[in-house]
């Protein structure tokens, strides 16, 4: 593996930030503003794509921006794990920015410029987190994501919005200050550096003689510090943050925000602590059991929710823990399963949220019970929703199947029947809360008020802005299942080392 020092990787982060500034400047001209947003997204994706061959060749890109103190730097380092996350997030940003046009204009939302600025900067910060070469850089961008998504959660500026946003920022800021900051300092005291060991996931950065008790404390602080990952009991902000406009829920709360949390936990587990220490101390397996609780409980709660977005929110809480579960099991197969779920969950969950938003804009419906017969009026949307649901459940050939396959292999490698049972049970629960939605839409009885309405709801031009992206993501969520090689190869690069 070679490390190539290049300032080019700055570009990927800068494009969304510059997009944000340009959006702010052109705020009054709606069409120009929204085009800039989309073009920024496309350019970001292209720039990430341009680094892909280098990463696939087994090299890493690195650039140090600032040094705050010896060993504490703002450093970007692009490795396979980072590139997976960056690819997914930047690609989905393109579709989300198209979707936003339809959604925000369809509902005639206020403060759209602020919305687009915060949206772009949040994605840029997520890129920064993906590219973070050390814990400080990760922390820096993690916090920027928190601050810039705060106005997005609060977007409607009503009582619900303020409450959700307050809860959001309190959870995220409290955990990062109370846990992450001391964790970072303890790690710095023990190691004298915060740089990731991205070359080898086994070793981590701790000196061999580091006090295992202190290492354990640092691990727990890190684990609970990244509350964006939505692991119980620090998941409570997520359902309340769903008061945000649906594009925010879709991109940020299915892809960017929560994934930054999960990505950070995975990153810390693999590149700071390393699988050796986690194995030796038993912290890995402990984590696996801990998140199993979240996987099952959140699924059960999802069953009880009748509001579609709330159900999706709890499904997110549950699904995110799959990723951590996979990494925590610490076998090559399980890590593969966990990391590939970053992509699989992203494509499927964004489709589900897009569909929920599209249904709301087109028909004004939020509750599952009202959606009877909707499949006939919004066939594209509901088919995409169905495909993505299959992915969440783990039915082949949709992406989620690949995840569950590798996770199951991992549990078998460990001969751990408890975790295998958790996986199977949670799949049943997933089916339990997704299948009724699809069945209701296609075979359920419409509400008396909607009786006899058969006209398509998907025809309007603004609605098309939403339907097209969600159909694309729906198809993609199948494609990543049929053709998982791209991500698998990247993960192999990490796991093999």
């Amino acid at each position, binding site marked *: 593996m070679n490390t190539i020092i290049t300032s080019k990787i700055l570009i990927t982060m800068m494009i969304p930030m510059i997009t944000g500034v340009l959006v702010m400047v052109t705020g009054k001209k709606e069409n120009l503003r929204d085009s800039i947003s989309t073009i920024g997204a496309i350019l970001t994706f292209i720039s990430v794509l341009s680094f892909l061959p280098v990463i696939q060749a087994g090299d890493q890109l690195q650039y140090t921006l600032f040094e705050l103190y010896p060993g504490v730097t703002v450093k970007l380092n692009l490795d396979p794990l980072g590139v997976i996350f960056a690819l997914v997030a930047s690609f989905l940003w393109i579709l989300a920015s198209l979707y936003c046009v339809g959604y925000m204009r369809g509902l005639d939302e206020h403060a759209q410029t602020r919305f687009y600025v915060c949206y772009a900067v949040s994605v840029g910060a997520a890129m920064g987190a993906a590219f973070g070469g050390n814990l400080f850089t990760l922390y820096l961008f993690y916090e920027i994501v928190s601050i810039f998504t705060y106005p997005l959660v609060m977007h409607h500026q009503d009582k619900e919005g303020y409450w959700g946003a307050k809860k959001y920022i309190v959870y995220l800021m409290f955990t990062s200050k*109370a846990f992450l*900051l*001391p964790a970072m300092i303890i790690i*710095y005291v023990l190691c004298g550096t915060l740089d990731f060991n991205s070359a080898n996931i086994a070793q981590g950065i701790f000196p061999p003689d580091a006090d295992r008790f202190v290492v354990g404390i640092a691990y727990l602080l890190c684990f609970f510090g990244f509350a964006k990952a939505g692991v119980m009991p620090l998941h409570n902000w997520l359902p309340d943050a769903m008061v945000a406009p649906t594009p925010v829920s879709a991109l940020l709360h299915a892809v960017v925000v929560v994934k930054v949390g999960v990505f950070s936990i995975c990153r810390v587990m693999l590149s700071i602590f390393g699988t050796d220490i986690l194995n030796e101390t038993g912290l890995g397996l402990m984590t696996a059991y801990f998140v199993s609780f979240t996987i099952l409980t959140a699924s059960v709660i999802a069953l009880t929710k009748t509001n579609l977005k709330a159900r999706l929110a709890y499904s997110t809480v549950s699904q995110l823990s799959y990723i951590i579960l996979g990494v925590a099991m610490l076998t090559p197969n399980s890590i593969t399963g966990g990391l590939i779920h970053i992509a699989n969950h992203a494509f499927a969950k964004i489709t589900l949220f897009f569909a929920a938003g599209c249904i709301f804009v087109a028909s004004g419906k939020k509750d599952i019970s009202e959606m009877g017969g909707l499949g006939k009026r919004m066939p594209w949307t509901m088919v995409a929703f169905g495909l993505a649901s299959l992915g969440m459940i783990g039915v082949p050939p949709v992406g989620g199947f690949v995840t569950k396959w590798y996770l199951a292999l991992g549990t078998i490698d460990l001969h751990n029947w408890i975790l295998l049972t958790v996986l199977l049970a949670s799949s049943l629960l997933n089916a339990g809360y997704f299948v009724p939605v699809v069945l209701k839409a296609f075979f359920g009885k419409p509400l008396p008020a909607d009786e006899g309405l058969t006209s398509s709801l998907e025809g309007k031009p603004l609605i098309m802005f939403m339907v097209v992206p969600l159909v694309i993501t729906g198809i993609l969520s199948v494609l990543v299942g049929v053709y998982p090689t791209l991500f698998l190869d990247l993960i192999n690069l990490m796991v093999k080392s």
Partner: protein
Amino acid sequence: MENYLILNTLNYPILSLLLIVPAVGALVAMFLRGETLLKFWGLAVTLVTALISLPLWTRFDQTTAKYQFVELRHWFPALDLDFVVGVDGISVLLVLLTTLVMPLCVLCSWTYIKTRWKEFIIVTLLMETAMLGVFVSLNTVLFWIFWEGMLVPMYLIIAIWGGARKDYASIKFFLYTFCGSIFLLVAIVSMYIKTGTFFIPDLMAHDFGFSYQVWIFLACALGFAIKMPMFPFHTWLPAAHVEAPVAGSVILASILLKMGGYGFLRFCLPMAPAATVYFVPLLLVMSLISIVVGGYLALGQSDIKKLIAYSSVGHMGFVTLGIFLLNDAGIKGAMLQMINHGVTTGALFILIGIIYERTHSREIADNSKLGMFMPIYVTFLGIFSLSSLAFPGTNSFVGEFLVLFGAFDKYPLVGAVSILGAILAAAYMLRLMQKMVWDDSDGHAHHGDDHGDGHGDEGGHTLFDCNVREFVQLAFLTVFVFWIGLHPTPLLDMMDSSIAHLLHQIEAGSVMPEAVHHGESHALLNNAGTWIKNLF
């Protein structure tokens, strides 16, 4: 004596000029007439002083801990009293902070101060001389003269241009700080009787013996702790901040509070090293209490100025915490925190001044929902609030990180408790920001029909965004927020040698040398360590 000094090699006496220019400026101001002329005169003098000070940055020799740019003039031979000024890596940054903040103090008063501009310019300029004098004096008498010299102008600033309870606040400020400095004078005279010198580096080199050091330490520390202010001597600060005019608050927050930290570093630590080590547990506990109590009290304030004042108590707690960790990271962090607090809290007070001019209220409830009217103002408010809560990438983060690193390295429990301060800081700043920018309560803000407290009427009824003058001040400070936040190395390099020297002095002079050696901190089961462990 010359062992510690590098004489000024510039072809002009830079430090004397820094002291003389504002003083002469004040003198000339006596003969000027007209508000506008006086405003521009004040601005010009402070700007010229700032320009004069810049070579201190560019020509400073980072490789030595000696005092530089030194000027030595015999003054009072009978007492062996010299006029001697110089700067080292610790004081030079505070001098620069002072010269750079003072023009802002004039600028932020431009429309805020409405009466007695002549007197205002005179006291402000005298204040600048006194403050610079404190930082550059290498002679205890000179130090004390400037130290006391700050009291009167500051008293006047609060008492003349202050708010409704200005009499109470100004007297309280005067009495508190005066009490503290009396003890300082006792220590200075006592040390002279013991050693026969007023020269600070000589006093640092002198070995006073432990029991004498204890008294010196206590006498000096009381004065500095009041100035800082540390809990339980902090009560003058909120009163003074709330009543002071905007320039007074900025001077207080940005510079005056740093005198305490500077005093600890210049007097207590090097002159009484053994006593310092002895008192470390006490000072650490007091710092922790300041951090937590300051943050907790800030959380409950409805007056913006009071909130920032209490947050200053908390921030200064981090400074004393860093200083009394007696390790490299701690003291560097404390120094950076002093600069950062000067930049950030200064800016926050300027922001409060700006909004006060518009709404005539310092209540959070009266100043809510500003996001709709004042986007530029709100952006700056956001930047400085985040800086104040030590958001990564901003200046305060670096300082706080270093202090916390020093703490966790040495006394993990102390570090763990001080994290509480970091959490509280996030809580009260986010609360302030949310209420001022958006406000979730049901409309207390009556921006259209707000009748102020009669503090001038023109333009008070509408909310217009920052004008160019206000923008320039805030933008200038914003540069420092990100510069120090992302690239603090130049600052750290400047103080490096002096702090290493200081640590060496403490190590050599203390009876428990292992306590101060950075890197061997795990073997610190000395008295101080056990003492503090017993506390928790």
